């Protein structure tokens, strides 16, 4: 890892000021992607600005029918939160499937979605639940947030402050994890929301995406069999040492079917 300067601001204003004054800064949250990337010298920021001391980025709150989770909230806290478990059990379930126990004690929601790893779990929940990403300067709808491989709608220096997840009618997440890293080879979040049916897939493509054919099939009949024969095109899917693109396409169908089964309890 190359040398850098370390900063630990206590307010958003101070974090933004430090970002503006640095040559090549990066914000640091849980550090479970950024620090490994720095070890590999894939990232070499001049300044690391840790966001975990900023109180306004922490915590879980209920606002009407929404669960609002601060960006610096760790995966383990979301998984174990009574509020999340009771209002959106699928979200607590998903958080409890990220990485392993120790990773969940460090990794954060904001860090995960700011990084937008194609195999991360949270993007499936953000898009699947039609959540709203709140930043230091605006609100971004889930469908507009994830744009491409490791790319989001965030501007330079913009900080995710929280994510507001609306309570769905019913929802569930299923994933086929890589056995070593626990990253999703394919993960599918299925949700019947108050604004319609949503099926969000992570791990399979460059970025999380929805499957309209499955959404309309489930809107007509919310049953595992409704999606069992829908095979998505593998043209743009990832193909690597872990799984070929046609296998990932197959897994999308299988995980979607299992997610519907799980949502039906």
């Amino acid at each position: 890892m190359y040398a850098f300067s370390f900063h630990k601001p206590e307010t958003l204003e101070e974090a933004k000021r430090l970002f503006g004054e640095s040559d090549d800064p990066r914000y640091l949250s849980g550090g479970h992607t950024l620090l490994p990337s720095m070890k590999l010298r894939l990232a070499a920021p001049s300044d690391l600005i840790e966001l975990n001391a900023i109180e306004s980025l922490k915590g879980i709150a209920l606002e009407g029918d929404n669960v609002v989770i601060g960006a610096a909230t760790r995966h383990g806290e979301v998984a174990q939160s009574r509020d999340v478990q009771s209002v959106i059990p699928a979200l607590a379930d998903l958080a409890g499937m990220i990485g392993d126990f120790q990773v969940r004690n460090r990794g954060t929601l904001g860090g995960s979605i700011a990084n937008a790893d194609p195999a991360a779990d949270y993007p499936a929940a953000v898009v699947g639940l039609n959540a709203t990403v709140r930043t230091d300067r605006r609100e971004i709808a889930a469908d507009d947030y994830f744009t491409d491989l490791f790319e989001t709608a965030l501007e330079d220096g913009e900080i995710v402050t929280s994510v507001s997840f609306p309570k769905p009618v019913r929802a569930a997440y299923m994933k086929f994890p890589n056995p070593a890293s626990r990253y999703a080879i394919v993960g599918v979040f299925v949700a019947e929301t108050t604004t319609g049916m949503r099926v969000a897939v992570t791990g399979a493509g460059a970025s999380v995406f929805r499957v309209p054919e499955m959404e309309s099939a489930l809107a007509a009949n919310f049953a595992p069999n409704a999606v069992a024969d829908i095979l998505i095109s593998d043209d743009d899917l990832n193909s690597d040492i872990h799984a070929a693109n046609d296998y990932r396409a197959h897994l999308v169908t299988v995980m979607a079917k299992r997610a519907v089964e799980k949502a039906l309890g």
Partner: protein
Amino acid sequence: MTITVTMTVNGEERSGTCEERTLLVTFLRETLRLTGTHVGCDTSQCGACVVHVDGDSVKSCTMLAVQAEGRDITTIEGVADGDTLHPIQQAFHENHGLQCGYCTPGMIMSALDLIKHNPDPSEREIREHLEGNLCRCTGYHNIVKSIRAAADKMAAGS
């Protein structure tokens, strides 16, 4: 740049100099000479480097020493009570829960966190909890057996 960091390690306040980029595990091993915490994969997968930070188990290869400033750290050296092994350590000894021993400090630190949250874990829960701890010798059977035995002993002792 050389910096000084101060943290509580196994109940004692410890200070040392390092760089901003120094990992917590490197600080513990090379600056404080607490070499019980191991470096296995250095990629946050194997769990040989697990320590507790403010009571939560974390992988110390994926945290900077400077991030531990002012925090309360427990390493494997802080688990036994003098010459008396902790029930989890004793259970690993009695159940042959290790062969080469490389993963053992991480296994024990991880097991401690499990039993703290779940004093009566099932075999399945133990196996799920150990997802982030890799052992290349034992096939996990005796590790799981050790943790189950320790949970029984700790429940009986409390």
